[in-house]
């Protein structure tokens, strides 16, 4: 199963001056406290006409007629530079529509299931005719409500004045009212019912726009998640819900159910993640995320706008809808494996918040801030917020992301403004709380990605929970969306009907000296030869019947491989150029030339221990564990005649005396013994041939490539799984010279390790050796480390400087001096860690430290 995709998004605005006056909370509060205030008297002079609001450039961006960055070319104030065009052209956009208030009042009545909305007869008749002719809502069956239950102005006025009904004005004329839904239940008061009907009607409008934009049949919707900031219910369950289903009913989603998700402004992003998870898990195929707007927020900053002689810019209700579905090979994918979340314990400083929401998910995925092309943050229109002293909200968010990048040493401080201008998108969304939060860019991102001009973006939603007076915690979540690699992964293999569960093994295709096609050939060979395994390839796009995951580079391939191993989607993997931690090394498998017998070489890459004797002992345990995982109950062990062979033999004898079961073999040479000669190597005398990993590496390459002239490894099963006490995954290594037969062998070898429960076998082997006194034996035989190149005695280990992301490999340091080299750097205040590279031990440092590190390590004699 691939990642879920964003099939489409739709956006609706409703221009609503009269709701601003009569139901906006700034205005209703003012009317309560200062009924004769100048502000209320001045307010109507600052209203825009529908035409002005429709042609307002930020609104044109919201409905998709302008690209967001087009705002950079329009001089401020934007309200003085409207988009040119006839009303009918600016009213409708690629992503949605701006509707005038009279029509919207008609919709409020259409979505009212309890006959609470009463409209004046002529007004109602006119709206019925207008809406029936509308290309999107004209087909709503509920429009028929506009053919009955009308009233006259006197009755409506009486209902408002004397019976607590909420008035509905259009151009300052009373055209209707919303009655209360209960005699005294505050949760069903006329004002609450009005707000909820506005939310429902605007949401339903945006959902119908979505169906028009995407062609999705409403009957195909399985589930709806509504994520506005309203609450519906009665006094016994004030937020009981369910907006979602009521919206689905209006729009003809007869096969859907749904529920409401709340989280203040962060709710739409929560809802998107929930929707993606439902699709990814296979619970539902088509999920809708939808939210209507907030009538109370109209004119929220009206006083500041009026004071500064501006129009009341908060005169539109906003709504949106999005469709999340299974991978279609073209729509942007939602990376359900790269999700950020501000947790209860994350902390409240802007730095902690940005770290948790933006940086942590990228770290988990092995990505950097610079790997994200741009971000959708709180996309509030700055022309609304700046006069109210709230500044330019999106720009502040972009600055925070860039500043975090500086803190993390991804960018130079002097590059801060360059980074901001590279990632910034001007704000354009109405200040409706949840509406501007992350989701306004979904439609634009989809367009730009499908045009091939954007690869990877992050959607961020944040919310201030203190407003609910239950917690002071902040909240926020994020997810990453990517251009669809143009490939539908074959998930037919997931519905595996064979009685035996197939072992899933992945192969990363990139990095080979023989090209990706050679590795793919190996993968296909492995699949053809082994019906009990499923081979998955991770690499560029190829024409193959194998299940494929398309990635851009080796780094992403390793990140995907690691995350799939971690999640259990894969049982094992085969890759190259992969760094294991110290303590993990590989056990390879060769075909010995004399008799064509399989033999394990322990070990072939990596470092089991920085002390040679200890490494040899651990190599033995690891080799035995791999042999057992491959079905050899009591593998025979031989020690290659190298430096340290006799010491190892004595160590193993020591363990044997205390009950560790080691099955030494005898050399085929006349004088016998457990120490093996070159002849034994060629004959494959033991099941497990123990040696140090540098020697093992030479043996692997020699025995794999001696028939081909050297550059193509054609025999054997590769360098084997990385094994170490407590290591938690099965990753088999091949070399960049490995050919297709070795690749196929490596995949089968990896699958065998998974089926043979290698990880358990390793832990059992180490546990048995420890029980037999391994730690004491190691102490007794511990080599005295080679004289240190600095005064590092091991007792005064310096404290590590603050951790950084280290990606630059410094090779060429002796394994015994590796820790010492790291400590030299720590003392100089440079963070570094040690690891095992392809050709030997490496010190890992941050790229910007490389020059300084090389200088220090040269001075200390390590390089």
């Amino acid at each position, binding site marked *: 199963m691939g990642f879920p995709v964003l099939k489409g998004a739709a956006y609706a605005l409703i221009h609503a001056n009269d709701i601003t006056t009569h139901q906006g909370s700034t205005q209703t509060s003012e009317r309560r406290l200062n009924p004769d205030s100048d502000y209320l008297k001045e307010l109507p002079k600052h209203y825009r006409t529908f035409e002005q609001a429709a042609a307002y450039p930020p609104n044109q961006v919201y409905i998709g007629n302008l690209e967001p960055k087009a705002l950079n070319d329009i001089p401020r104030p934007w309200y003085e530079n409207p988009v040119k065009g006839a009303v009918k052209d600016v009213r409708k956009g690629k992503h949605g529509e701006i509707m005038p208030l009279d029509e919207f009042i008609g919709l409020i009545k259409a979505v009212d299931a309890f006959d609470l909305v009463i409209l004046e007869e002529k007004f109602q008749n006119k709206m019925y005719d207008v809406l029936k002719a509308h290309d999107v809502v004209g087909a709503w069956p509920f429009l028929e409500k506009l053919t009955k239950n009308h009233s006259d102005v006197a009755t409506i006025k009486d209902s408002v004045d004397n019976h607590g009904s909420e008035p509905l004005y259009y151009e300052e004329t009373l055209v209707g009212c919303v009655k209360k839904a209960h005699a005294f239940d505050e949760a069903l008061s006329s004002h609450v019912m009005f707000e909820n009907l506005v939310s429902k009607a605007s949401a339903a409008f945006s959902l119908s726009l979505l169906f028009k934009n995407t062609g999705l049949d409403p009957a195909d919707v399985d589930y709806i998640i509504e994520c506005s900031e309203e609450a519906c219910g009665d006094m016994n369950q004030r937020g009981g819900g369910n907006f979602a289903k009521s919206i689905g009913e209006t729009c003809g989603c007869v096969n859907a159910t749904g529920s409401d998700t709340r989280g203040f402004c962060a709710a739409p992003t929560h809802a998107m993640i929930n929707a993606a998870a439902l699709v990814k898990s296979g619970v539902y195929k088509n999920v809708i995320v939808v939210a209507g707007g907030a009538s109370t927020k109209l004119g929220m900053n009206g006083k500041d706008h009026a004071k500064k002689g501006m129009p009341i810019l908060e005169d539109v209700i906003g709504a949106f809808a999005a469709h999340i579905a299974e991978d279609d090979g073209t729509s942007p994918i939602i990376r359900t494996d790269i999700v950020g979340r501000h947790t209860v314990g994350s902390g409240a*400083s*802007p730095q*902690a918040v940005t770290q948790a929401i933006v940086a942590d998910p990228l770290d988990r995925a092995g990505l950097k801030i610079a790997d994200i092309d741009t971000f959708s943050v709180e996309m509030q229109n700055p022309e609304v917020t700046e006069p109210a002293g709230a500044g330019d909200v999106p720009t502040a968010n972009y600055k925070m992301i860039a*500043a975090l990048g500086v803190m993390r040493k991804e960018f130079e401080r002097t590059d801060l403004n360059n980074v901001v201008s590279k990632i910034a998108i001007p704000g354009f969304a109405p200040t409706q709380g949840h509406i501007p939060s992350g989701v306004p860019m979904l439609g634009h991102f989809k367009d730009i990605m499908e045009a091939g001009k954007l690869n990877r973006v992050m959607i961020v939603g944040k919310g201030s929970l203190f407003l609910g007076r239950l917690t002071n915690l902040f909240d926020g979540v994020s997810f990453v969306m990517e251009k669809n690699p143009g490939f539908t992964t074959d998930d037919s293999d997931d519905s595996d009907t064979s009685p035996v569960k197939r072992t899933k093994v992945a192969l990363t295709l990139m990095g080979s000296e023989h090209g990706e096609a050679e590795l793919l050939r190996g993968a296909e060979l492995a699949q053809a030869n082994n019906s009990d395994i499923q081979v998955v390839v991770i690499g560029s796009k190829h024409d193959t019947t194998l299940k494929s995951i398309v990635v851009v580079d080796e780094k992403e391939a390793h990140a995907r491989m690691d995350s799939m191993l971690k999640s259990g989607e894969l049982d094992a993997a085969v890759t190259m150029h992969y760094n294991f931690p110290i303590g993990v090394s590989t056990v390879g498998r060769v075909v010995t030339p004399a008799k064509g017998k399989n033999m394990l070489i322990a070990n072939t890459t990596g470092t089991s221990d920085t002390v040679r004797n200890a490494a040899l002992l651990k190599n033995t345990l690891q080799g035995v564990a791999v042999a057992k995982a491959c079905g050899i109950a009591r593998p025979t062990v031989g020690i290659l005649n190298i430096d340290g062979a006799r010491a190892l033999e004595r160590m193993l004898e020591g363990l044997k005396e205390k009950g560790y079961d080691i099955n030494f073999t005898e050399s085929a040479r006349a004088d016998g013994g457990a120490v093996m000669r070159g002849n034994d190597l060629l004959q494959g005398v033991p099941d497990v041939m123990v040696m140090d990993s540098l020697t093992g590496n030479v043996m692997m390459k020699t025995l794999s490539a001696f028939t081909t002239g050297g550059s193509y490894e054609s025999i054997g099963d590769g360098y084997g799984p990385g094994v170490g006490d407590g290591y938690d995954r099965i990753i088999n290594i091949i070399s960049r010279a490995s050919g297709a037969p070795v690749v196929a062998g490596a995949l089968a070898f990896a699958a065998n390790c998974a089926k043979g429960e290698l990880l358990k076998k390793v832990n059992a082997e180490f546990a048995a050796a420890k029980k037999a006194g391994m730690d004491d034996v190691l102490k007794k035989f511990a080599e005295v480390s080679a004289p240190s190149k600095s005064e590092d005695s091991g007792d005064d280990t310096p404290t590590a400087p603050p951790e950084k992301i280290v990606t630059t490999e410094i090779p060429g340091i002796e394994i015994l001096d590796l820790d010492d080299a790291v400590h030299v750097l720590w003392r100089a205040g440079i963070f570094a860690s040690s690891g095992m590279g392809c050709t030997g031990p490496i010190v890992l440092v941050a790229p910007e430290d490389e020059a300084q590190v090389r200088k220090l390590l040269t001075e200390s004699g390590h390089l």
Partner: protein
Amino acid sequence: MHDKYGKDDLIVLLGGAEAEASGLAAETVSAGDPTFAGPLAGVSLGLKAYHIVELKDEIDATVYEDQIAMMEMVIDVDAVIAEVANYRG
């Protein structure tokens, strides 16, 4: 707090990300709420307000690095300090 400690032993610490809003808060606790919207409308407490970036030298460097350093890059420090200092008389 003001009633308990008086204006000489109490300062107000601000963390606003923007000069105008920080100035507004500083003015509110010194001269009184200029918007006449809250409980300090017409109440002149005479408290001195400082923005957190002004007290950098007083704060443990590690804590500052963890909590403030990022925002220090984001906000217009000079403008904020100038605005807040305005209301300290």
